[in-house]
């Protein structure tokens, strides 16, 4: 039997808008995944430690505040410190195109802008976590 994927959805930074994060959480749940939703105003430390304790297969971060340039690479660095550098991290929210290259270079697996479809995100998570699961077995 295939086990459900466990995905952490978090909101780093100080903006108080989590509608997007909740929509993603719901879409992943409806796709049969277990979504650990950590809520608003999370520090990178809180996200990385929650990811460790929950042993998640992927992490999705929603950020609208414009602080993605510092917060997202910090999450990646902390995950690597904790031996969880193999967990794919994807991001969504308001992230200008010109920042995407730098974020990907910092280790963010994918960035989903406002035009992304839920189906696209679900498929991305499936594709990337299957690879990881296969490697871990």
């Amino acid at each position: 039997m295939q086990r459900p994927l466990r995905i952490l959805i978090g909101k780093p930074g100080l903006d108080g808008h989590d509608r997007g994060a909740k929509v993603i959480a719901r879409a992943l749940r409806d796709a049969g995944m277990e979504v650990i939703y950590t809520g608003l105003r999370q520090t990178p430390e809180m996200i990385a430690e929650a990811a460790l304790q929950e042993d998640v297969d992927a992490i999705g971060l929603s950020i609208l505040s414009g602080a993605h340039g510092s917060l997202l690479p910090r999450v990646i660095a902390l995950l690597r410190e904790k031996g969880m550098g193999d967990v794919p991290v994807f991001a969504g929210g308001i992230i200008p195109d010109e920042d995407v290259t730098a974020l990907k270079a910092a280790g963010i697996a994918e960035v989903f802008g406002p035009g992304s479809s839920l189906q696209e995100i679900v498929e991305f998570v499936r594709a990337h976590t299957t690879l990881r699961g296969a490697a871990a077995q």
Partner: protein
Amino acid sequence: MTAPADARRALARLLTQIENGDARAQAPVAAAHRAAGRAHVIGITGAPGTGKSTLVSALARAWRATGATVAILSIDPSSPLTGGAILGDRIRMRELSGDEGVFIRSMAGRGAQGGIAAAAADACAVLDAHGFDIVLVETIGAGQSETEVARLAHTVVLVEAPGMGDDVQAIKAGIVEIADIIVVNKSDRPGAEQTASALRAALDLAPRSQGHHGAEIAGKPETRGATGPDDWAVLVLQTTATQSEGISALLERIGAHRIWLAAGAQGAQRQARRSRDEIVFRLRELLFRRALARLAEGELEALAARVAACELSAAEAAQMIAER
């Protein structure tokens, strides 16, 4: 020496293997059950919206203030349609993050046959063996989970909130009967006193079979319902978890229950009953899985069609499978 983060990561991975029924978990789980027995396992149950997560967070902080380390196992239901789940209890526990003396794990129910009860019991043993002083298990008080939590935990705290269908809900059998302590949370809201009174009255109406049921009379706890000096009196306490009000009294009462379990003959009986219930539960799971394993591909569907066509009763079909 292992870095703390590595130990926590190993613990988290073992918990995943337990959840998934992974064979690799068997040996470490067996070892954990032998090393367990030091932690106080406390079940926190109650209807959705009563503030369980906030209460758990407030309790955990209170224990941390005493120096005790705390593990939290938070169980939420899975969607019966997709098998997915949104596990959001961490939202209300954010004050605990950054504290290495706290470990929080969210678990999805994974349906009635997902064996989450077995997984939760194993997870508790592993957290206990890992060295946590307190293991808090938070479950939704609906369906069969209330009896499961009684088997899992040394001490069961039932959480209610004002205006949650007071009288009728309080008298409902099952959930009130397994509670060792009842808490009316959100006591800053109107109607909290009435809810507490209704629960105290319900406790008087429904004494436990073991006779250790009591209720608090103003200023004189443990006088009603407790028929002997060895009896445990179920008190109704009031808390407002968002303001940490009533938390120290609850902590004290939970501690008193542990002392009661360890001290008297009734406590020992209770522990023995828990262990027996757990064996019976595991046996049922085991036999059930064995029976299912003997089913040929499509056989269950074929039997189901005959039962649906009234050629066979469901009981007869079950017997055919069991006697294979």
